[in-house]
């Protein structure tokens, strides 16, 4: 079997297109590269959507955290504490067990049946967990940025007669984003890496459609040789990380475009681990 045939068979295997069976014996390097790369689709799917939705919730949470009213502030603080204070791994398990308990036949609400079985699938359930988790971590970053906006900027805004929503929309929010962006980039990288936990926690992979690490683990289990599949995963993730840094760097440049060259905040890659 040529490498091209392997590619057409397995490049989209992780989303159910292509050959039905995974290779069973005589594994080639080409198969490993293709199949692990195909699993990467899931990592990108989870991370991109969770980041996108999480961004909005994180903004809301950060605002709630600086609110004066304890009825708004306390729930946000608890939310952030619970999601930042416990392992993502446990959160996945907990969410899965919770979603499994929903009635199979769906919830009957005013005569309309809401189907809930899709929530136990990884594509929805794990996405929800990742979304809430990244929202909590990002909210902490945005909250810190909101608190470190220079006092002078806010006074200048007031001197110009900007108040309330206008002040927030035109001064506070852009400044917050600019200050938070380097940390937020790290959070994004970090989130990409934690997507590898999905199929190792409660969420099962159906008909062997998993993420990059799922396939790498499959190969390592079958060949008893970790020195090929895991470095391939590492290779893909380094490329993915570089892509994220490039994209977020572009946005960072846009956010800092009004500042002189030497006072722009640079994005520095800081090591992070599992959450």
């Amino acid at each position, binding site marked *: 079997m040529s490498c091209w045939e392997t590619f057409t068979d397995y490049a989209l295997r992780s989303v159910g297109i292509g050959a039905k069976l995974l290779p069973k014996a*005589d*594994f080639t390097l080409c198969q490993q590269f293709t199949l692990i790369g195909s699993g990467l689709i899931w990592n990108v799917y989870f991370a991109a959507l969770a980041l996108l939705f999480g961004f909005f919730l994180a903004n809301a949470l950060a605002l709630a955290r600086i609110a004066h009213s304890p009825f708004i502030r306390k729930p946000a603080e608890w939310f952030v*504490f*619970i999601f*930042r*204070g*416990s*392992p*993502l*791994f*446990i*959160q996945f*398990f*907990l969410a899965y*067990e*919770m979603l*499994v*308990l929903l009635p199979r036949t769906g919830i009957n609400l005013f005569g309309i049946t809401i189907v809930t079985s899709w929530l136990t699938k990884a594509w929805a359930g794990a996405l929800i967990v990742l979304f809430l988790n990244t929202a909590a971590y990002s909210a902490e970053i945005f909250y810190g940025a909101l608190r470190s906006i220079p006092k002078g900027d806010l006074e200048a805004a007031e001197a110009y007669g900007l108040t309330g929503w206008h002040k927030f929309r035109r001064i506070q929010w852009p400044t917050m984003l600019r200050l938070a962006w380097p940390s937020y980039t790290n959070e994004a*990288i970090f989130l*990409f*890496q*934690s997507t*590898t*936990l999905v199929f*190792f926690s409660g969420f099962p992979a159906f008909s062997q459609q998993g993420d990059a*690490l799922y396939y*790498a*683990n499959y190969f*390592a289990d079958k*060949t*008893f*040789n*970790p*020195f*090929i599949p*895991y*470095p391939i*995963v*590492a290779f893909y*993730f*380094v490329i993915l*990380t*570089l892509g994220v840094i490039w994209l977020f760097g572009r946005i960072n440049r846009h956010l800092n475009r009004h500042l002189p060259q030497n006072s722009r905040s640079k994005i520095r*890659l800081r*090591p*992070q*681990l*599992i*959450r």
Partner: protein
Amino acid sequence: MFAACADPKAIEGLTWAMCYLTSGKHVDFYWSFVTVLALLAITAPVAMALGFGGAMAARSHITPIRWFGKAYTAMVRGVPDIVYFLFFVIALDQGIEYLNHLRVCEDLSQPVFRGLEFHVCPEAKVPPASASPFVNQLYGFGLAVITFAIVFGAFVANVIFGAMQAVPRAQLETGEAYGMSQRQVFRRILVPQMWTYALPGLTNLWMILIKATPLLFLLSVKDIVYYARELGGTKTQAYDYPHPDWRLFYFLGLLVFYLAMTKISEIVLTRISNRLSKGQATAAGEAMRKAAI
């Protein structure tokens, strides 16, 4: 455990709950918490030592050692650490078996790596096939500790390397002006002064280490996640204590355990941080000085 628990089917209510929670499996479950704490207690100092060594190597004047230190600290960037966890455990296991293979096997004519596969003779298996489950568990736990220590050592090395760079140069020069040698400056000034800069990063790492412990489950150690799944699953009438699917409650218990660990660590580390900031030329130290006036 208790006399009243002799016939679990006949009891109910509080007695049932008490008997259920003290059953043999549950006692194993409580011991697995000790496993997690033991992992933390062993890994943290070893990772600190490795990290300190790594940072010193990265600062070394001897080029090969410096390269080694830099490579070690750079290792953890950009790649999900779970990859390391899965990789190191097999790699270490195979490394040990390979050395054993060279030592005990009679027939060394076959290569160990055949194509893409790994074979050693049956006598070289570690732990031996006849070993008790406890030895197997202990071996798995040992591999897990080494893996955690290597990976977290790299993170610690990053933090300590940064902290050593952050110590104001003037303080080191003052030491030199007093006639201290390079070693004395390192031992008497750089290392004691470094901690205040390293502590925020180390605090972060400690929190991450706590949250990384459930990965023991992936390394097939019977840890708290394993038992929570085992005990919580639906038990039919064939069992002594039949009950529906309670995994949710077990995982809620684990969640509370981790949140409590986080909270306690936060309180303790804030205290240490305050102690270390006293009299330092940092923002925190300055704030303390002003508050004291």
